[in-house]
Each structure stands twice: as structure tokens, then as C-alpha cells.
């Protein structure tokens, strides 16, 4: 199986197929282009309610990537305001179900629960980290932003973003590796 070195940046285009992610490994730097969807706490809660009552979702999940972000308002002349990731663990309770339904990737920051990590292996999906607090830099990768649902939630609305060369790092790959664990162990100094 081909492994990529950690300093090369791998281009990734959405929607994702299994072939796109099968060789990606925890630690790979990637650059994402295509459409991704934003959703955070309340949007996830509402998506789950729709799923439970067997109703149609505001966007298709199959092969898609969800970005956990609540951007700042777009100043005049800009597509979006500052748009870095929010902490992912708050979405953990909802995530296994979305993965089961075909979600292939998530972008956020911070560790995921064991249940989410198991579901990523089972349904073959990946979790990527964007740099938290680099919202100004990341906003430059966003070329279009359209609200597709829950406008009433303001920054928490579901948006479809067209991104070009969105910078991220693979944290969890389909084999169950975790960069937060691996990375810390590698640089820890035991006294």
C-alpha cells in the first residue's frame, strides 16, 4: 500500500470516494477543493431529528465533507468572514449516524470519541484538522458561500462552501490511526 510522506501536500477533491481516501494516512497534509458543508451543534441536532422522522436532509450526505465552523459575519465585498474550525467533540453524539449514512469526511479541531473513531473505521471515512484560530487565513480558501438551511441559526446555519486549496491535516485515517495520539507520543519528553 502506498504511503505518502508527511511534507508533501496531497490534493483532494470533493465529493470523496473510497479510492480518494483509502491511501490517506494520519499525518498527511492535504489541500481540499470542491464543495463542503458547514454544520455545528444545533444544525447537527436538527439533522438528527430529520433522520429520526425519516425526512429528507437539506443536503446529500453520500461522499460529502462536513466542516465544523461558525464563521464571523462577512464584511461587504467578502464571501465569508473569519472561518476557522470549532472543537469537534460536541458533534460526537451525532456523528456515527451520519457516517453510517455515507458521510466521508469531517473537518474540525480536537479529539473525537471512541465511538466516532470506530465508526470511521467501520464506514471508511476520515477526520481532518484545520488550524484552529487561523480563521482569516482559511477564509481565503472559501470562494462561494450559500446558505442551504437553518438561516435562523445565524453563524450556525448550514452553508455550502465552494473551497479551493483548503489546508488541513489528516488526523484519523480509515485504519484507525490517530494523529493526536501518535504526534504527542512522538514528541513527548519523559522525565
Amino acid at each position, binding site marked *: 500500500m502506498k504511503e505518502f510522506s508527511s511534507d508533501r501536500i496531497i490534493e483532494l477533491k470533493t465529493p470523496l470516494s473510497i479510492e480518494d481516501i483509502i491511501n490517506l494516512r494520519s499525518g498527511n497534509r492535504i489541500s481540499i477543493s470542491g464543495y463542503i458543508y458547514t454544520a455545528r451543534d444545533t444544525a447537527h441536532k436538527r439533522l438528527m431529528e430529520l433522520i429520526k422522522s425519516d425526512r429528507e436532509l437539506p443536503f446529500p450526505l453520500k461522499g460529502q465533507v462536513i466542516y465544523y465552523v461558525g464563521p464571523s459575519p462577512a464584511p461587504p465585498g467578502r464571501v465569508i468572514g473569519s472561518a476557522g474550525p470549532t472543537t469537534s467533540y460536541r458533534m460526537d453524539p451525532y456523528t456515527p449516524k451520519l457516517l453510517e449514512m455515507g458521510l466521508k469526511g469531517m473537518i474540525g479541531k480536537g479529539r473525537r470519541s471512541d465511538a466516532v473513531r470506530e465508526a470511521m473505521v467501520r464506514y471508511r471515512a476520515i477526520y481532518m484538522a484545520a488550524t484552529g484560530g487561523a480563521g482569516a487565513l482559511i477564509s481565503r480558501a472559501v470562494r462561494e458561500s450559500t446558505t442551504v438551511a437553518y438561516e435562523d441559526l445565524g453563524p450556525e446555519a448550514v452553508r455550502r462552501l465552494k473551497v479551493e486549496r483548503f489546508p488541513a491535516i489528516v488526523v484519523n485515517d480509515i485504519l484507525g490511526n490517530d494523529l493526536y495520539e501518535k504526534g504527542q507520543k512522538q*514528541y513527548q519528553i519523559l522525565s
Partner: protein
Amino acid sequence: MRRISTKTVIQAVRDLAISANLELGKDVIHAFEEALEKEISPSGKAILAQLIDNAQIAREEKIPICQDTGLVTIFVDLGQEVSIVGGDFKAALEEGIREGYSKGFLRKSVCHPFTRKNTGDNTPLIAHIEIVPGDKLKICVVPKGGGSENMSRVFMLPPSAGWQGVKEHVVRTVNEAGPNPCPPTIVGVGIGGNFEQSAFLSKKALLRPLGSRNSNPELDQMEKELLEEINKTGIGPQGLGGRITSLGAHIIMMPCHIASLPLGINIQCHASRHMEVTL
């Protein structure tokens, strides 16, 4: 008495709220540059380089450094020879924040604890007002995001825990926080006082410029020791592994009750935003 109008206060707070969110302090940027030289992990280096670029983009393009423009704390030193005229002082602080967050396209991130309904204007705020000698009014606006504030802690340690116990608790807190508070962080430590004072001191400690020395040589030494321990954890930038987990550890210490050893730990993310003015 020197008179300062609430109108002046509103304008000052509004401008500080906006500039604090767009312009990162030179001390912080300098600390990123130093960290970039010291960091050995490739992902850590890439992230630190991004943070330097991010600060520049935010300043030049006038968009927030981070989308989480936070809940605002305002530290006020009010000279006892100043008389505030033209209205309610605290209402003026609020109005300044309201205007700044609306005019500056900053995210409103304040809500009801249970219904989670957004208050819509980023108020209320937390004000710490201290009466000091003189006829000046100093206002320091500190927007702070949820990611790092959520990882902060207060411990009421037994006195026997001593400095060793304090160190262990700080390092444990940093370890448990892992990637969540957006490392590289700054760790504010308040030792002594009582329950709420230790928390207050830990936040106040964050306001000291990064890279500056503690004026108390004993505390200066303790800060060095603490930072070294924190950076042994290997958490690194964004928690993806590396030698730079924190850019600084700042301590404020004061006497406490004979039966206690209060310890406040305030974790500050790399987006360490604060802006002040003296009127």
C-alpha cells in the same frame, strides 16, 4: 475631579473591541516567530507559519484573527479623581461592545445557558472594575473564545501540595486539554487568594506581554520551570505533536488562608487578544 463622558467611554470600547479582534499584539507574533525556529515537528512548523500569515491577513484585510470573537472581559482601572458623566458607566461599556461587534462584523457568541438563544449583540460582558489613585481611566478589552476558556480550571489544593502539587495540576490541566484550546497556548496561573481570586489572578496574568520577565525573581524561576514541564508533554501546535505546546506561563501569587492553597489556571489560546487605552 476630572470629568470623562460616557460618550468617550462608548467610543473607546467600540474601537478597542474591533482592533483587539483584528490586530494581534507584536509580542504574540514575535513569540510565534521564535516558536517556529524552535519547533522540530513538521506539522508544528507548518501550523506556526500559518499563524504568522493569519495575523498578517487579519490586520491587512480587516477580518477577525479567529471567527470566535468571544465573550468579552473588560478590565478597568478607574482613577479615584475621575468622575464619569452623562450616564451609567457599565451601560456605556455594554454599548461600546454592542457597537463594536455590530460595526466590526464580529461574531455574536453569547447565549442563554439553557435555551442557548443568542443575545444577539454579544452582551452582557464581564467587567472587573478597580478604583486606583489618580485621574486616569484605563480600559482593557479582552475577547476570549470558548475553546480555551472551557479548558480552564480552579483547584482548592491542600497546603501540603506545595509548589510540586501546583506544577502537577497545571501540567495535568494542559494535558487533559490537549488540542482543544488551540495550542500553542499561554498559561495564566493564579496562586493564593481565595476561590474566585485565584481564577481572577490567572486571567489577569495573561495580560502581561509575552516574552516579558516576571518582576519577582522567584516567580520568574517558577514560570521557567513550569513552561519547561508543559513543553515536555509533546502536545505541540494544535495538539498534533511538537515541542511548543505553550508560548509562556505567567504567574501571579498572593497570600492565602492558613488552611488553603487556591490554584486558578486560565488557558489562553494562541489568539491572545487584548487591547487597552488610557483616557
